[in-house]
Protein backbone atom coordinates (compact mmCIF):
# COMPACT_ATOMS: atom_id res chain seq x y z
CA UNK A 1 0.00 0.00 0.00
CA UNK A 2 2.73 2.45 1.00
CA UNK A 3 4.78 1.43 -1.99
CA UNK A 4 1.87 2.03 -4.28
CA UNK A 5 1.06 5.41 -2.82
CA UNK A 6 4.48 6.91 -2.78
CA UNK A 7 6.92 7.03 -5.64
CA UNK A 8 10.30 5.60 -4.73
CA UNK A 9 11.86 9.08 -4.71
CA UNK A 10 9.45 10.08 -2.03
CA UNK A 11 9.41 7.60 0.88
CA UNK A 12 6.98 8.23 3.73
CA UNK A 13 9.62 8.14 6.49
CA UNK A 14 7.22 7.89 9.41
CA UNK A 15 10.05 7.75 11.96
CA UNK A 16 11.39 11.15 10.90
CA UNK A 17 8.06 12.72 11.39
CA UNK A 18 7.48 11.10 14.76
CA UNK A 19 9.30 13.51 17.02
CA UNK A 20 7.82 16.74 15.84
CA UNK A 21 4.09 16.85 16.29
CA UNK A 22 1.90 16.05 19.29
CA UNK A 23 0.82 12.47 19.70
CA UNK A 24 -2.86 13.20 19.20
CA UNK A 25 -2.22 15.05 16.01
CA UNK A 26 -0.01 12.26 14.85
CA UNK A 27 -2.64 9.63 15.39
CA UNK A 28 -5.19 11.66 13.53
CA UNK A 29 -2.69 12.42 10.86
CA UNK A 30 -1.89 8.77 10.43
CA UNK A 31 -5.53 7.98 9.79
CA UNK A 32 -6.03 10.75 7.32
CA UNK A 33 -2.67 10.32 5.68
CA UNK A 34 -3.71 6.80 4.87
CA UNK A 35 -6.95 8.03 3.39
CA UNK A 36 -5.61 10.71 1.15
CA UNK A 37 -2.14 9.44 0.41
CA UNK A 38 -2.97 8.73 -3.18
CA UNK A 39 -4.01 12.33 -3.71
CA UNK A 40 -0.89 13.57 -1.98
CA UNK A 41 1.28 11.30 -4.03
CA UNK A 42 -0.30 12.70 -7.17
CA UNK A 43 0.40 16.24 -6.05
CA UNK A 44 3.95 15.30 -5.13
CA UNK A 45 4.75 14.51 -8.70
CA UNK A 46 3.51 17.85 -9.84
CA UNK A 47 5.16 19.98 -7.19
CA UNK A 48 8.70 18.69 -7.56
CA UNK A 49 10.11 22.07 -8.42
CA UNK A 50 13.34 22.36 -10.33
CA UNK A 51 14.70 24.57 -7.57
CA UNK A 52 15.63 21.91 -4.99
CA UNK A 53 16.45 24.42 -2.23
CA UNK A 54 12.74 25.18 -1.84
CA UNK A 55 12.20 21.67 -0.54
CA UNK A 56 15.12 21.58 1.85
CA UNK A 57 15.87 22.79 5.33
CA UNK A 58 13.69 23.78 8.22
CA UNK A 59 10.33 25.49 8.39
CA UNK A 60 8.70 26.47 11.67
CA UNK A 61 5.00 27.16 12.01
CA UNK A 62 3.67 28.57 15.23
CA UNK A 63 0.38 29.97 16.45
CA UNK A 64 -3.24 29.03 16.70
CA UNK A 65 -4.17 26.12 18.93
CA UNK A 66 -7.35 25.73 16.90
CA UNK A 67 -5.29 25.02 13.79
CA UNK A 68 -2.62 22.82 15.30
CA UNK A 69 -4.42 19.60 14.23
CA UNK A 70 -4.79 20.77 10.71
CA UNK A 71 -1.31 22.24 10.34
CA UNK A 72 0.28 19.08 11.77
CA UNK A 73 -1.53 17.00 9.20
CA UNK A 74 -0.46 19.29 6.40
CA UNK A 75 3.08 19.10 7.70
CA UNK A 76 3.02 15.29 7.83
CA UNK A 77 1.71 15.04 4.31
CA UNK A 78 4.15 17.66 3.05
CA UNK A 79 7.16 16.03 4.66
CA UNK A 80 6.09 12.68 3.29
CA UNK A 81 6.72 13.93 -0.21
CA UNK A 82 9.59 16.29 0.58
CA UNK A 83 11.76 14.35 3.03
CA UNK A 84 14.44 17.04 3.09
CA UNK A 85 12.08 19.61 4.53
CA UNK A 86 11.73 19.65 8.27
CA UNK A 87 8.43 21.26 9.25
CA UNK A 88 7.88 21.80 12.95
CA UNK A 89 4.47 22.80 14.26
CA UNK A 90 3.68 24.33 17.63
CA UNK A 91 0.50 25.80 19.12
CA UNK A 92 0.23 28.26 21.96
CA UNK A 93 -2.34 30.63 20.49
CA UNK A 94 -2.53 33.09 17.60
CA UNK A 95 -1.14 35.88 19.77
CA UNK A 96 1.89 33.72 20.51
CA UNK A 97 2.31 33.09 16.78
CA UNK A 98 2.14 36.79 15.91
CA UNK A 99 4.62 37.65 18.67
CA UNK A 100 6.96 34.96 17.36
CA UNK A 101 6.63 36.15 13.76
CA UNK A 102 7.27 39.76 14.78
CA UNK A 103 10.21 38.76 16.96
CA UNK A 104 11.57 36.62 14.12
CA UNK A 105 11.41 33.24 15.85
CA UNK A 106 9.01 31.52 13.46
CA UNK A 107 8.72 31.40 9.67
CA UNK A 108 4.96 31.13 9.47
CA UNK A 109 2.28 32.22 11.91
CA UNK A 110 -0.96 30.24 11.94
CA UNK A 111 -3.79 32.47 13.12
CA UNK A 112 -7.47 31.98 13.83
CA UNK A 113 -8.03 35.74 13.83
CA UNK A 114 -6.94 38.67 11.70
CA UNK A 115 -3.86 40.58 12.75
CA UNK A 116 -4.54 43.48 15.12
CA UNK A 117 -3.56 47.03 14.25
CA UNK A 118 -1.09 47.16 17.10
CA UNK A 119 0.53 43.92 15.99
CA UNK A 120 0.92 45.26 12.46
CA UNK A 121 2.40 48.39 13.98
CA UNK A 122 4.83 46.34 16.08
CA UNK A 123 5.83 44.39 12.97
CA UNK A 124 6.48 47.62 11.10
CA UNK A 125 8.73 48.81 13.89
CA UNK A 126 10.76 45.62 13.44
CA UNK A 127 10.98 46.32 9.67
CA UNK A 128 8.71 43.41 8.87
CA UNK A 129 5.83 43.51 6.45
CA UNK A 130 3.36 40.71 6.95
CA UNK A 131 1.17 39.16 4.30
CA UNK A 132 -1.72 36.83 4.86
CA UNK A 133 -3.44 33.98 3.07
CA UNK A 134 -6.68 32.30 4.05
CA UNK A 135 -6.03 28.56 4.10
CA UNK A 136 -9.22 27.14 5.65
CA UNK A 137 -12.36 28.07 7.57
CA UNK A 138 -13.67 27.08 10.95
CA UNK A 139 -16.84 27.43 12.96
CA UNK A 140 -16.76 28.14 16.66
CA UNK A 141 -18.83 25.54 18.48
CA UNK A 142 -20.43 26.37 21.82
CA UNK A 143 -20.21 23.24 23.96
CA UNK A 144 -21.94 22.22 27.20
CA UNK A 145 -22.16 19.01 29.23
CA UNK A 146 -24.25 16.27 27.54
CA UNK A 147 -26.68 16.25 30.50
CA UNK A 148 -27.43 19.95 30.11
CA UNK A 149 -30.97 20.22 28.71
CA UNK A 150 -30.44 23.62 27.05
CA UNK A 151 -31.04 23.13 23.33
CA UNK A 152 -30.44 26.58 21.90
CA UNK A 153 -28.73 29.82 22.82
CA UNK A 154 -29.06 33.15 21.08
CA UNK A 155 -26.06 35.37 20.56
CA UNK A 156 -27.51 37.82 23.09
CA UNK A 157 -27.83 35.07 25.71
CA UNK A 158 -24.29 33.95 25.04
CA UNK A 159 -23.12 37.48 25.49
CA UNK A 160 -25.00 37.89 28.77
CA UNK A 161 -23.41 34.68 30.05
CA UNK A 162 -19.87 35.61 29.06
CA UNK A 163 -20.18 39.21 30.16
CA UNK A 164 -21.35 38.21 33.61
CA UNK A 165 -24.93 39.50 33.50
CA UNK A 166 -26.34 35.98 33.88
CA UNK A 167 -24.88 33.22 35.96
CA UNK A 168 -27.55 30.56 36.31
CA UNK A 169 -28.75 28.11 33.66
CA UNK A 170 -32.34 28.91 34.71
CA UNK A 171 -32.01 32.26 33.00
CA UNK A 172 -31.62 30.54 29.63
CA UNK A 173 -34.23 27.83 30.20
CA UNK A 174 -32.06 25.25 31.90
CA UNK A 175 -31.92 23.75 35.40
CA UNK A 176 -31.19 25.74 38.57
CA UNK A 177 -27.43 25.40 38.31
CA UNK A 178 -24.64 27.99 38.36
CA UNK A 179 -22.95 28.51 35.02
CA UNK A 180 -19.22 27.77 35.00
CA UNK A 181 -17.85 29.96 32.24
CA UNK A 182 -14.74 28.61 30.52
CA UNK A 183 -12.56 30.46 28.08
CA UNK A 184 -9.15 30.22 26.51
CA UNK A 185 -6.50 32.55 27.87
CA UNK A 186 -5.79 35.83 26.14
CA UNK A 187 -3.03 34.49 23.89
CA UNK A 188 -5.69 32.62 21.93
CA UNK A 189 -7.04 33.96 18.65
CA UNK A 190 -10.33 32.30 19.46
CA UNK A 191 -10.49 34.41 22.64
CA UNK A 192 -10.23 37.62 20.66
CA UNK A 193 -12.57 36.39 17.93
CA UNK A 194 -15.17 35.53 20.55
CA UNK A 195 -14.65 38.85 22.29
CA UNK A 196 -15.17 40.69 19.04
CA UNK A 197 -18.08 38.69 17.62
CA UNK A 198 -20.03 37.78 20.73
CA UNK A 199 -19.11 40.33 23.38
CA UNK A 200 -19.03 43.29 21.01
CA UNK A 201 -15.43 43.99 22.01
CA UNK A 202 -16.30 44.24 25.68
CA UNK A 203 -14.29 42.38 28.30
CA UNK A 204 -14.98 38.87 29.55
CA UNK A 205 -16.48 38.42 33.03
CA UNK A 206 -13.77 38.33 35.59
CA UNK A 207 -14.60 34.96 37.10
CA UNK A 208 -14.37 33.22 33.74
CA UNK A 209 -11.90 30.38 34.10
CA UNK A 210 -9.13 30.80 31.58
CA UNK A 211 -7.60 27.54 30.42
CA UNK A 212 -4.30 27.26 28.61
CA UNK A 213 -5.44 24.85 25.89
CA UNK A 214 -8.54 24.03 23.86
CA UNK A 215 -8.29 20.36 24.81
CA UNK A 216 -8.54 21.38 28.47
CA UNK A 217 -11.83 23.17 27.75
CA UNK A 218 -13.29 20.07 26.12
CA UNK A 219 -12.07 17.95 29.02
CA UNK A 220 -13.55 20.28 31.61
CA UNK A 221 -16.91 20.68 29.89
CA UNK A 222 -17.22 16.90 29.71
CA UNK A 223 -16.75 16.75 33.51
CA UNK A 224 -18.75 19.73 34.79
CA UNK A 225 -22.52 19.69 34.37
CA UNK A 226 -22.72 23.47 34.64
CA UNK A 227 -19.85 24.34 32.33
CA UNK A 228 -19.95 26.14 29.00
CA UNK A 229 -17.06 26.67 26.63
CA UNK A 230 -16.21 27.56 23.05
CA UNK A 231 -13.94 25.49 20.82
CA UNK A 232 -13.11 25.03 17.15
CA UNK A 233 -15.53 22.83 15.21
CA UNK A 234 -12.99 20.07 14.70
CA UNK A 235 -12.39 19.80 18.45
CA UNK A 236 -16.13 19.51 19.09
CA UNK A 237 -16.39 16.83 16.44
CA UNK A 238 -13.48 14.84 17.90
CA UNK A 239 -14.99 15.06 21.38
CA UNK A 240 -18.01 13.08 20.16
CA UNK A 241 -20.60 12.33 22.83
CA UNK A 242 -18.58 13.65 25.76
CA UNK A 243 -19.84 17.18 25.08
CA UNK A 244 -22.97 18.64 23.52
CA UNK A 245 -22.80 21.29 20.80
CA UNK A 246 -25.47 23.96 21.28
CA UNK A 247 -26.96 25.49 18.13
CA UNK A 248 -26.85 29.27 18.00
CA UNK A 249 -29.61 31.58 16.88
CA UNK A 250 -28.34 34.87 15.45
CA UNK A 251 -31.23 36.86 16.96
CA UNK A 252 -33.75 36.04 19.70
CA UNK A 253 -36.53 33.98 18.18
CA UNK A 254 -34.65 33.31 14.95
CA UNK A 255 -34.05 29.72 13.91
CA UNK A 256 -31.12 28.05 15.67
CA UNK A 257 -28.23 27.05 13.46
CA UNK A 258 -26.02 24.08 14.14
CA UNK A 259 -22.35 24.53 13.24
CA UNK A 260 -21.50 22.15 10.41
CA UNK A 261 -19.51 22.06 7.22
CA UNK A 262 -22.56 23.31 5.28
CA UNK A 263 -23.56 26.16 7.58
CA UNK A 264 -19.98 27.38 7.94
CA UNK A 265 -19.35 27.19 4.19
CA UNK A 266 -22.53 29.04 3.34
CA UNK A 267 -21.87 31.62 6.03
CA UNK A 268 -25.22 31.28 7.84
CA UNK A 269 -23.59 30.09 11.06
CA UNK A 270 -22.90 33.31 12.96
CA UNK A 271 -19.59 32.25 14.53
CA UNK A 272 -17.54 31.28 11.48
CA UNK A 273 -14.11 32.60 10.71
CA UNK A 274 -11.30 32.18 8.23
CA UNK A 275 -8.07 30.50 9.35
CA UNK A 276 -4.98 32.18 8.01
CA UNK A 277 -1.27 31.85 7.54
CA UNK A 278 0.89 34.94 7.96
CA UNK A 279 4.42 35.23 6.64
CA UNK A 280 6.90 38.08 6.77
CA UNK A 281 8.20 39.73 3.62
CA UNK A 282 10.49 39.13 1.85
CA UNK A 283 8.92 35.75 1.37
CA UNK A 284 10.72 32.62 2.29
CA UNK A 285 10.45 30.33 -0.75
CA UNK A 286 10.05 27.32 1.54
CA UNK A 287 7.09 28.92 3.30
CA UNK A 288 5.50 29.84 -0.02
CA UNK A 289 5.87 26.28 -1.29
CA UNK A 290 4.25 24.94 1.87
CA UNK A 291 1.33 27.35 1.69
CA UNK A 292 0.86 26.52 -1.98
CA UNK A 293 0.66 22.87 -0.99
CA UNK A 294 -1.96 23.65 1.68
CA UNK A 295 -4.09 25.47 -0.90
CA UNK A 296 -3.68 22.73 -3.51
CA UNK A 297 -6.53 20.22 -3.99
CA UNK A 298 -4.59 17.67 -1.93
CA UNK A 299 -4.12 20.15 0.87
CA UNK A 300 -7.76 21.15 0.88
CA UNK A 301 -8.74 17.49 0.91
CA UNK A 302 -6.84 17.22 4.21
CA UNK A 303 -8.86 20.21 5.48
CA UNK A 304 -12.08 18.38 4.68
CA UNK A 305 -10.95 15.14 6.29
CA UNK A 306 -9.82 16.78 9.50
CA UNK A 307 -13.18 18.40 10.20
CA UNK A 308 -12.40 21.95 9.13
CA UNK A 309 -13.99 23.78 6.22
CA UNK A 310 -12.20 24.45 2.94
CA UNK A 311 -10.89 27.92 2.17
CA UNK A 312 -13.46 28.89 -0.49
Amino acid sequence: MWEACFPSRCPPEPSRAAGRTPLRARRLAAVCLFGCCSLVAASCQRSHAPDAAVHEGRLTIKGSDTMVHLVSMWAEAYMACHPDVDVSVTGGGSGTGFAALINGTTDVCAASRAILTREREAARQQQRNLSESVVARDGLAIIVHPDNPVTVLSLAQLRAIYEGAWDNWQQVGGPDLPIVVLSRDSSSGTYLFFQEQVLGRRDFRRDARLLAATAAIVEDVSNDVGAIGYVGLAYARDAGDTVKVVPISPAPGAAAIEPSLETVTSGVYPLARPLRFYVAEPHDARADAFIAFCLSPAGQEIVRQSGYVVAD
Partner: protein
Amino acid sequence: MARLFHSDRSVRYGLLFATSTSLLIVALIFLFLGKEALPFLANPGLTQLLGTRWIPVSFDAGSFGIVPLFTGTLLVTSLSLVLTVPLGIGAAVYIAELAAPWERRILRPLMELLTAIPTVVIGFFGLVVLGPWIKYLCALPSGMNALTASLLLAVMAFPTVVSVSEEAIRGVPAAWKRPSLALGATPLQTTWRVTVPAAAPGILAAVSLGAGRVVGETMVVLMVTGNAAQLTLWPLKSVRTMTATIALEMGEVALGSHHYRALFCIGVLLLGVTFGLNLVAQRALSRQTQSH
Protein backbone atom coordinates in the same frame (compact mmCIF):
# COMPACT_ATOMS: atom_id res chain seq x y z
CA MET B 1 58.13 27.92 47.82
CA ALA B 2 57.21 31.01 45.84
CA ARG B 3 55.54 28.89 43.17
CA LEU B 4 53.55 27.03 45.72
CA PHE B 5 52.40 30.35 47.16
CA HIS B 6 51.43 31.48 43.68
CA SER B 7 49.29 28.45 42.93
CA ASP B 8 47.77 28.73 46.37
CA ARG B 9 46.65 32.22 45.53
CA SER B 10 45.20 31.25 42.16
CA VAL B 11 43.19 28.45 43.72
CA ARG B 12 41.92 30.90 46.28
CA TYR B 13 40.80 33.32 43.58
CA GLY B 14 39.29 30.52 41.57
CA LEU B 15 37.19 29.46 44.52
CA LEU B 16 36.23 33.05 45.25
CA PHE B 17 35.01 33.36 41.66
CA ALA B 18 32.98 30.17 41.97
CA THR B 19 31.38 31.48 45.14
CA SER B 20 30.56 34.88 43.77
CA THR B 21 28.99 33.50 40.57
CA SER B 22 25.66 32.94 42.27
CA LEU B 23 25.81 36.42 43.77
CA LEU B 24 26.60 37.86 40.37
CA ILE B 25 23.72 35.98 38.77
CA VAL B 26 21.26 37.23 41.38
CA ALA B 27 22.47 40.78 40.84
CA LEU B 28 22.16 40.41 37.06
CA ILE B 29 18.64 39.02 37.34
CA PHE B 30 17.59 41.95 39.51
CA LEU B 31 19.20 44.32 37.04
CA PHE B 32 17.56 42.71 34.02
CA LEU B 33 14.10 42.54 35.58
CA GLY B 34 14.40 46.13 36.72
CA LYS B 35 15.50 47.30 33.29
CA GLU B 36 12.51 45.66 31.57
CA ALA B 37 10.00 46.66 34.25
CA LEU B 38 10.94 50.25 35.03
CA PRO B 39 9.67 51.88 31.82
CA PHE B 40 6.17 50.79 32.85
CA LEU B 41 6.37 53.08 35.88
CA ALA B 42 7.06 56.05 33.64
CA ASN B 43 4.32 55.16 31.17
CA PRO B 44 1.50 54.13 31.86
CA GLY B 45 2.51 54.65 35.48
CA LEU B 46 2.38 53.05 38.88
CA THR B 47 -1.33 53.79 39.42
CA GLN B 48 -2.14 51.38 36.56
CA LEU B 49 -0.36 48.61 38.44
CA LEU B 50 -2.30 49.28 41.62
CA GLY B 51 -5.66 48.81 39.89
CA THR B 52 -7.95 45.89 40.63
CA ARG B 53 -8.51 44.72 37.06
CA TRP B 54 -6.05 42.55 35.14
CA ILE B 55 -7.30 42.60 31.56
CA PRO B 56 -4.13 42.80 29.48
CA VAL B 57 -5.74 41.96 26.15
CA SER B 58 -8.74 44.10 25.44
CA PHE B 59 -10.22 46.10 22.60
CA ASP B 60 -10.12 49.07 24.97
CA ALA B 61 -6.86 50.22 26.44
CA GLY B 62 -6.33 47.11 28.59
CA SER B 63 -5.76 47.31 32.32
CA PHE B 64 -2.79 46.02 34.23
CA GLY B 65 -3.86 46.04 37.88
CA ILE B 66 -1.83 43.39 39.66
CA VAL B 67 -3.79 43.55 42.92
CA PRO B 68 -6.03 40.54 42.07
CA LEU B 69 -2.94 38.53 41.11
CA PHE B 70 -1.23 39.49 44.34
CA THR B 71 -4.24 38.55 46.44
CA GLY B 72 -4.47 35.30 44.48
CA THR B 73 -0.91 34.40 45.44
CA LEU B 74 -1.54 35.61 49.00
CA LEU B 75 -4.68 33.51 49.37
CA VAL B 76 -3.15 30.34 47.99
CA THR B 77 0.04 30.77 50.02
CA SER B 78 -1.56 31.55 53.36
CA LEU B 79 -4.10 28.78 52.98
CA SER B 80 -1.47 26.19 52.21
CA LEU B 81 0.67 27.39 55.14
CA VAL B 82 -2.30 27.12 57.50
CA LEU B 83 -2.61 23.52 56.37
CA THR B 84 1.03 22.54 56.29
CA VAL B 85 2.62 24.37 59.25
CA PRO B 86 0.88 22.64 62.20
CA LEU B 87 1.25 19.28 60.50
CA GLY B 88 4.85 19.95 59.56
CA ILE B 89 5.89 21.07 63.04
CA GLY B 90 4.13 18.08 64.56
CA ALA B 91 6.00 15.75 62.22
CA ALA B 92 9.28 17.52 62.97
CA VAL B 93 8.76 17.16 66.74
CA TYR B 94 8.00 13.48 66.32
CA ILE B 95 11.01 12.76 64.15
CA ALA B 96 13.40 14.83 66.25
CA GLU B 97 12.24 13.95 69.76
CA LEU B 98 10.10 10.85 69.87
CA ALA B 99 10.96 8.61 66.95
CA ALA B 100 13.23 5.62 67.47
CA PRO B 101 16.40 5.76 65.36
CA TRP B 102 15.10 3.13 62.95
CA GLU B 103 11.84 5.09 62.48
CA ARG B 104 13.85 8.19 61.69
CA ARG B 105 15.92 6.29 59.19
CA ILE B 106 12.74 5.34 57.32
CA LEU B 107 10.64 8.48 57.78
CA ARG B 108 13.14 11.09 56.66
CA PRO B 109 14.01 9.67 53.23
CA LEU B 110 10.37 8.83 52.57
CA MET B 111 9.37 12.40 53.26
CA GLU B 112 12.11 13.78 51.10
CA LEU B 113 10.78 11.60 48.32
CA LEU B 114 7.88 14.05 48.18
CA THR B 115 10.18 16.71 46.79
CA ALA B 116 11.17 14.38 43.99
CA ILE B 117 7.68 14.29 42.47
CA PRO B 118 7.57 16.55 39.41
CA THR B 119 5.17 19.43 40.04
CA VAL B 120 3.31 18.76 36.81
CA VAL B 121 2.45 15.31 38.12
CA ILE B 122 1.06 16.83 41.31
CA GLY B 123 -0.91 19.28 39.17
CA PHE B 124 -2.27 16.46 37.05
CA PHE B 125 -3.34 14.61 40.18
CA GLY B 126 -5.10 17.76 41.34
CA LEU B 127 -6.89 18.16 38.03
CA VAL B 128 -8.08 14.60 37.73
CA VAL B 129 -8.53 13.41 41.32
CA LEU B 130 -8.50 16.14 43.95
CA GLY B 131 -10.45 18.75 41.94
CA PRO B 132 -13.47 16.49 41.36
CA TRP B 133 -13.41 15.48 45.06
CA ILE B 134 -13.44 19.07 46.24
CA LYS B 135 -16.18 19.80 43.76
CA TYR B 136 -18.26 16.94 45.13
CA LEU B 137 -17.52 17.55 48.83
CA CYS B 138 -18.22 21.29 48.74
CA ALA B 139 -21.08 20.96 46.21
CA LEU B 140 -19.37 23.39 43.84
CA PRO B 141 -19.94 23.84 40.13
CA SER B 142 -16.22 23.36 39.50
CA GLY B 143 -13.26 21.96 41.41
CA MET B 144 -10.78 24.49 40.05
CA ASN B 145 -10.32 26.91 42.92
CA ALA B 146 -7.87 28.28 45.47
CA LEU B 147 -8.55 25.52 48.00
CA THR B 148 -7.63 22.70 45.62
CA ALA B 149 -4.38 24.45 44.75
CA SER B 150 -3.61 25.14 48.42
CA LEU B 151 -4.02 21.49 49.36
CA LEU B 152 -1.55 20.45 46.67
CA LEU B 153 0.88 23.21 47.56
CA ALA B 154 0.67 22.21 51.22
CA VAL B 155 1.88 18.77 50.22
CA MET B 156 4.73 20.33 48.29
CA ALA B 157 5.82 22.64 51.11
CA PHE B 158 5.55 19.89 53.73
CA PRO B 159 9.05 18.33 53.33
CA THR B 160 10.73 21.75 53.49
CA VAL B 161 8.89 22.72 56.66
CA VAL B 162 9.56 19.37 58.32
CA SER B 163 13.25 19.00 57.53
CA VAL B 164 14.23 22.57 58.45
CA SER B 165 12.25 22.62 61.70
CA GLU B 166 13.44 19.15 62.62
CA GLU B 167 17.03 20.30 62.34
CA ALA B 168 16.21 23.29 64.51
CA ILE B 169 14.58 21.14 67.16
CA ARG B 170 17.43 18.67 67.19
CA GLY B 171 19.88 21.57 67.47
CA VAL B 172 18.50 22.56 70.88
CA PRO B 173 21.29 21.55 73.30
CA ALA B 174 20.65 18.81 75.83
CA ALA B 175 21.90 21.23 78.49
CA TRP B 176 18.62 23.12 78.07
CA LYS B 177 16.36 20.10 78.30
CA ARG B 178 17.96 18.26 81.21
CA PRO B 179 17.25 20.95 83.83
CA SER B 180 13.60 20.90 82.81
CA LEU B 181 13.47 17.14 83.19
CA ALA B 182 15.38 17.35 86.49
CA LEU B 183 12.80 19.81 87.81
CA GLY B 184 10.12 17.20 87.28
CA ALA B 185 8.63 18.15 83.94
CA THR B 186 7.54 15.19 81.80
CA PRO B 187 9.33 14.66 78.45
CA LEU B 188 6.26 15.97 76.65
CA GLN B 189 6.13 19.10 78.79
CA THR B 190 9.82 19.63 78.15
CA THR B 191 9.29 19.29 74.42
CA TRP B 192 6.47 21.83 74.27
CA ARG B 193 7.67 24.28 76.91
CA VAL B 194 11.42 24.22 76.38
CA THR B 195 12.57 22.58 73.16
CA VAL B 196 10.05 23.95 70.68
CA PRO B 197 10.21 27.55 72.01
CA ALA B 198 14.01 27.37 71.90
CA ALA B 199 13.78 26.20 68.29
CA ALA B 200 11.28 28.94 67.37
CA PRO B 201 13.65 30.95 65.13
CA GLY B 202 14.50 27.80 63.19
CA ILE B 203 10.81 26.98 62.84
CA LEU B 204 10.16 30.49 61.57
CA ALA B 205 12.89 29.89 59.01
CA ALA B 206 11.18 26.64 58.04
CA VAL B 207 7.87 28.42 57.52
CA SER B 208 9.50 31.17 55.43
CA LEU B 209 11.27 28.68 53.23
CA GLY B 210 8.04 26.72 52.81
CA ALA B 211 6.22 29.94 51.91
CA GLY B 212 8.95 30.75 49.40
CA ARG B 213 8.43 27.41 47.73
CA VAL B 214 4.67 27.97 47.54
CA VAL B 215 4.89 31.55 46.24
CA GLY B 216 7.24 30.53 43.46
CA GLU B 217 5.34 27.42 42.40
CA THR B 218 3.87 27.76 38.91
CA MET B 219 2.78 24.54 37.29
CA VAL B 220 0.35 23.36 39.95
CA VAL B 221 -1.45 26.70 40.30
CA LEU B 222 -1.57 27.11 36.54
CA MET B 223 -3.31 23.78 36.23
CA VAL B 224 -5.79 23.83 39.11
CA THR B 225 -6.71 27.37 40.19
CA GLY B 226 -8.85 28.12 37.13
CA ASN B 227 -6.87 31.31 36.45
CA ALA B 228 -9.71 33.80 36.85
CA ALA B 229 -8.12 37.10 37.82
CA GLN B 230 -10.74 38.22 40.31
CA LEU B 231 -10.24 40.08 43.54
CA THR B 232 -11.34 37.65 46.24
CA LEU B 233 -10.15 36.05 49.46
CA TRP B 234 -12.77 33.28 49.45
CA PRO B 235 -11.00 29.90 49.10
CA LEU B 236 -13.70 28.25 47.03
CA LYS B 237 -13.40 30.75 44.19
CA SER B 238 -11.10 30.58 41.24
CA VAL B 239 -8.03 32.81 41.52
CA ARG B 240 -4.99 33.61 39.43
CA THR B 241 -1.50 33.80 40.91
CA MET B 242 1.37 36.00 39.80
CA THR B 243 3.45 33.05 38.61
CA ALA B 244 0.62 31.57 36.56
CA THR B 245 0.02 34.93 34.88
CA ILE B 246 3.61 35.18 33.74
CA ALA B 247 3.58 31.59 32.51
CA LEU B 248 0.29 32.01 30.65
CA GLU B 249 1.00 35.31 28.98
CA MET B 250 4.73 35.66 28.45
CA GLY B 251 4.57 33.67 25.23
CA GLU B 252 2.18 36.02 23.48
CA VAL B 253 3.55 39.46 24.23
CA ALA B 254 5.39 41.58 21.73
CA LEU B 255 8.76 42.64 23.13
CA GLY B 256 8.62 46.08 24.68
CA SER B 257 4.82 46.40 24.80
CA HIS B 258 2.97 47.60 27.92
CA HIS B 259 1.80 44.05 28.53
CA TYR B 260 5.38 42.79 28.37
CA ARG B 261 6.55 45.43 30.84
CA ALA B 262 3.62 44.72 33.17
CA LEU B 263 4.62 41.05 33.26
CA PHE B 264 8.13 42.09 34.24
CA CYS B 265 6.67 44.25 37.00
CA ILE B 266 4.98 41.12 38.32
CA GLY B 267 8.33 39.37 38.07
CA VAL B 268 10.01 42.08 40.15
CA LEU B 269 7.29 41.88 42.80
CA LEU B 270 7.55 38.09 42.87
CA LEU B 271 11.32 38.20 43.19
CA GLY B 272 10.99 40.81 45.95
CA VAL B 273 8.58 38.61 47.90
CA THR B 274 10.68 35.44 47.66
CA PHE B 275 13.85 37.40 48.38
CA GLY B 276 12.23 38.86 51.51
CA LEU B 277 11.10 35.43 52.66
CA ASN B 278 14.59 34.03 52.21
CA LEU B 279 16.07 36.94 54.10
CA VAL B 280 13.72 36.30 57.01
CA ALA B 281 14.68 32.63 56.96
CA GLN B 282 18.39 33.34 56.98
CA ARG B 283 18.20 35.86 59.79
CA ALA B 284 16.12 33.50 61.87
CA LEU B 285 18.57 30.67 61.29
CA SER B 286 21.56 32.75 62.27
CA ARG B 287 19.75 33.89 65.42
CA GLN B 288 19.08 30.26 66.24
CA THR B 289 22.72 29.22 65.93
CA GLN B 290 23.93 32.26 67.86
CA SER B 291 21.65 31.66 70.80
CA HIS B 292 22.88 28.10 71.35
